């Protein structure tokens, strides 16, 4: 009996061990260290960090205007992007599971932006917004292209949403495609024979049976958008006047540009708690909607 338990534990260590050790070294260790630094005043370079207790946390709540601006931006960006990307992904998934001729090719093409690194993508889109859009605007006189892209908080915001949606929709779409394909055809056939309309089939069969995928996709999109850094860093660098700065960027600037590593860590810890709370709430809610066929 005891021997058997030992063997089980050995097996666990063998299979979970390597991954866990890497996780512990890279994530857990940094996380614990981050908690420690959040209670210190440190510029990120000096050999000693000064213990200041809760000062950093108090400072975040006391008049850090830019942190507030970036928190609001992140919230708005998350809402707009999660909704747009998921609606679009679901729509595309519906369309591309129809018996179309080039459906597979089109899925691949829509998925492609995912494999481009965020920084490069940000720079490419920066060029598109500030050069290509301007040229198209001059040629066509279309108001959409003549907007001062990236030059106002409004255009900066929507540019960020557009680029995010363009980049991630394909990935979400793949998950939805998999979920839709796995729906038992007999259910749809039976509904069809019973005279259900397309809309009814969508709302009463397809959506309820893909709620699991919706849970996953909304969760993924939430975690991408709340932690958004690379694309917007390259796209707008937070400009104009800090209006498109995400909270993750605010943390980075605080720690590495303003050289307040302790304050940056405190923000990061608070950020972790908030994001964890939102994600848990979301997963719990959508879990409730899930049904088995």
């Amino acid at each position, binding site marked *: 009996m005891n021997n058997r338990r030992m063997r089980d534990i050995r097996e*666990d260590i063998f299979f979970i061990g390597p991954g866990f050790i890497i996780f512990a070294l890279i994530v857990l*260790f940094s996380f614990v260290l981050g908690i420690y630094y959040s209670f210190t005043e440190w510029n*990120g*370079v000096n050999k000693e960090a000064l213990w200041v207790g809760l000062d950093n946390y108090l400072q975040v709540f006391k008049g850090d205007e830019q942190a507030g601006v970036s928190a609001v931006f992140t919230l708005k960006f998350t809402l707009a992007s999660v909704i747009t990307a998921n609606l679009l992904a679901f729509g595309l998934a519906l369309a591309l599971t129809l018996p179309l001729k080039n459906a597979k090719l089109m899925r691949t093409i829509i998925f492609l932006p995912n494999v481009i690194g965020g920084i490069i993508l940000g720079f490419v889109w920066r060029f598109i917004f*500030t050069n290509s859009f301007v040229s198209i605007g001059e040629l066509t006189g279309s108001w959409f292209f003549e907007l001062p892209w*990236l*030059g106002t908080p409004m255009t900066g915001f929507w540019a960020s949403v557009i680029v995010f949606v363009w980049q991630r929709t394909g990935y979400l779409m793949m998950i939805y495609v998999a979920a839709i394909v796995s729906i038992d055809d007999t259910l749809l056939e039976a509904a069809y024979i019973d005279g259900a309309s397309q809309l009814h089939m969508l709302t009463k069969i397809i959506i309820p049976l893909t709620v699991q995928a919706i849970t996953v996709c909304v969760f993924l999109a939430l975690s991408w958008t709340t932690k958004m850094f690379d694309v917007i860093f390259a796209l707008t660098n937070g400009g104009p006047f800090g209006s498109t700065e995400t909270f993750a960027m605010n943390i980075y600037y605080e720690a590495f540009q303003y050289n307040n590593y302790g304050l940056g860590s405190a923000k990061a810890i608070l950020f972790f708690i908030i994001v964890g709370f939102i994600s848990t709430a979301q997963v719990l809610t959508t879990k409730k909607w899930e049904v088995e066929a």
Partner: protein
Amino acid sequence: MNKRLLTTFVLLLVAAGLLFAGGQQESGAQQKEAPAEVEAEEVELHFFQFKPYLDEEYKKFADDFEQQNPNVTVTTETIGGGTQWQTILKSKFAAGEGPDIFPVEGPSQYELWSDYIADLSGEPWVDNAVPFALEVLNIDGKQMGMPVNLEGYGYIYNKEIFKEAGVTKTPSTVSELEAAAKKIKDAGYTPFATGYSTWWVIGLHLYNVAFAQQDDPQAFIDKLNAGEVKMADNTLFQDLQNIVDLTVEYGEKNPLTTDHNKQVQMFANGTAAMIQQGVWKEVPIFEANPNANVGLLPIPLNDNAKMDRVAVGVPFNFVVNKTSPEPVQKAAKDFLNYLVNSKTGQKYMTENFGFIPAYKEVDPQGLKGVGKDILEYAGQDKTIPWVFGQFPDGFANEVSNNIQAYVADRQDWDKTLSRLDAAWQKLK
């Protein structure tokens, strides 16, 4: 089952901890072994610089140095562009792999790295350097960094467009600049490509002018730090509004959408007549248009005759890591001395790097329009210093955000200055 998993994780956590502790001990042991290298005389020098376009040239120079010093192996590492190189430098030091030579841009950065910077007073090059270049990192009478070159900035202008528009006298006051801009606009060109979406164009260079034009910039900064003066009460900072308004009025359509690359693009293809940039942009300008005929104008704030001065400064200093082993520090000092104090090094500086040397009696060659104009202004003593190296960390960011907000009509100039006063007090 749960208990079993828990046991596993606890065991693994302990194992990870041991592994980590092991790793740290190892690096400790390595540090202790370092002095053994003294006898071997083999020295590995880790040289870190931040100008990507000079990577190849620095490597060639390092090869030359290795030939002179066979016991030294130089590893040149180049990471540059914006501010990111500093973040990388920080992580290198955090990992215990800090380079032996690295750049420091000014006094604020010196503060940051002061735990690691060796005293270079008494090095042979000190006597040959231009005195004001030495001042930047002369801390309490000790020379902590080695200046290499001088850089200058202002409005780079297209001489052909000026001629075509009938601007004969180079403008040096706000009124003259406005008159010139008007003529240029009438001739069908965009007078300015502002580049106001790039933080350092505004936050470092433009804002620096209001500091540097003070009668005693250093005294002004000291008083600002002591809270005795306010930027909002100072006429030069109030006058800065003139030049911002002028460049926006006579600038491209959406100033907040143009960055420094777009500036160069608009300038090199001949649509814009002036860009607020420095000598470092000459390389891409001539790459895009080898026949460019360019010069440099000062950035005026009002109509005072004192405005006819361009900002010339020391963009960075090389410093030696004092936590490196003694023989490596020695090699690092030799390396730096070889760069600025030997015929070979000086040839590299002027011909290969295209630098304006910060050293007396070094003949600057390979200079083009902007570089020549900088030398000319310097020769007539018509320069103002670079003081943005003394801005508190993050202040340039605040400047950029606030002036952008002013350009976007989000706040008036008084509000801009009072917010910047508050930012300085908070960040200093």
